[in-house]
């Protein structure tokens, strides 16, 4: 029997059934996979933190290779000695500080409200690393990352990532040649916490100068580069009081 698909009642019933069917399929998929997805996100955070402090599987100058997901948890406990949360000037220990939502806490800190700011202390070959998560905005969407400092406030490594920067342009903030430039730069300019600026026309493409608080910008990605600069200097302001207590001149 042919159905008259033009009737209003049929259209309404069809739409209702479609919404229920599609909604259920999506809900089932999402709930079925949510544990696995959360686990992947947890591993990714651990991989990023370890990457910033130089624990990775990079094989040559161009590669960005993390510790594999199946080994990352063991490596994380091996290298990360302390996880701290700075809240209202107080420094507290927190076993799961890496799971703190940095986006939410940065938004609170920007408004001047009480925020939980995580910080990780790593130890590799007897050397101490202070790893700070960062969150900011690029051209199209969010950018974030981790910066590893030593007690002289010199950058030991960084990791940047983004949500929707332009492939081939702003998306290159997660390329080795950009991230590696930050290593060796100081976040201090004299006695001031200045951060590091991503400078156009730096005229130092191989980044030989390490005392200028500047790294060479990405061609065609001015706003993403400015976003990275702003993100670092803003984060340093949030952590300045704590960093003063650990700084060695």
């Amino acid at each position: 029997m042919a159905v008259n698909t033009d009737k209003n009642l049929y259209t309404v019933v069809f739409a209702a059934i479609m919404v229920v069917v599609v909604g259920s399929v999506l809900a089932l998929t999402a709930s079925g996979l949510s544990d696995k997805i959360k686990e992947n996100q947890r591993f990714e955070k651990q991989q990023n933190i370890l990457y910033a402090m130089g624990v990775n599987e990079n094989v040559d100058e161009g590669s960005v290779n993390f510790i594999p997901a199946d080994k990352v948890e063991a490596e994380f406990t091996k290298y990360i000695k302390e996880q701290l949360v700075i809240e209202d000037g107080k420094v507290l220990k927190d076993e799961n500080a890496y799971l703190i939502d940095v986006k939410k806490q940065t938004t609170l800190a920007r408004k001047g409200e009480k925020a939980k700011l995580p910080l990780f202390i790593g130890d590799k070959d007897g050397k101490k690393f202070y790893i700070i998560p960062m969150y900011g905005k690029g051209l199209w969407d969010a950018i974030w990352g981790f910066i590893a400092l030593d007690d002289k406030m010199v950058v030991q490594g960084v990791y940047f990532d983004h949500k929707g920067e332009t492939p081939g342009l702003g998306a290159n903030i997660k390329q080795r040649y950009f991230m590696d430039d930050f290593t060796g730069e100081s976040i201090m300019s004299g006695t001031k916490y200045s951060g590091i600026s991503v400078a156009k026309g730096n005229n130092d493409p191989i980044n030989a100068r390490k005392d200028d608080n500047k790294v060479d910008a990405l061609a065609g990605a001015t706003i993403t580069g400015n976003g990275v600069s702003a993100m670092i200097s803003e984060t340093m302001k949030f952590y300045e009081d704590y960093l003063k207590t650990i700084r060695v001149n």
Partner: protein
Amino acid sequence: MRLLSKKDSGLILDPLADNNPITIQVLGICSALAITAELKASIVMAVSVMFVLAMGNVVISLMRNIIPSKIRIIVQLVVVAALVIIVDQVLKAFAYELSKTLSVFVGLIITNCIIMGRFEAFALANGPWRSFLDGIGNAAGYGLILIIIGFFRELLGSGTLLGFKVLGDPITKTGLYAIGYENNGFMLLSPMALIVVGIIIWVQRSRNPALVEEN
């Protein structure tokens, strides 16, 4: 015995050349401009569109006799959106790295006019098997153009292909850079993708004058 009848193989082969969705039907231009600065991104986009278009075409074709014509566009959108979300979730769970590369393009797949165009023009009037072939063919035609544009933009704009330095190192001045070659930064900007599409259309029409419209 042929695997596909002549008519069926035409569904796959026509969109590759004489009925290409980008150069002839002029659909899907926006994503061709947005994501082709790198060859890898072009390939990932091509594969994702192929999955969504082929599966979507099959689903719409199976439902073609029961979809109310008044809300058919909404039904098509829901099908595309649901497929894209499922693909995204499955990738996030089982191929997390790839899903991060894909995330930029997910929104673009939903708005890709080729998908809605094929649902409207083909899947609503044909059976599931032929709709599947049509989806594969059109996505392949779209992907082919994307890969050509991505190849030239990445090669001339960054001197690399799939991230490998093929023209030498621009900083230490090796390879072509040693004799004074410079990367063309224009190639990385979206307008150059439009110019490359224009050049492909020009080459294609000059080789096959039957494609040129009469005034």
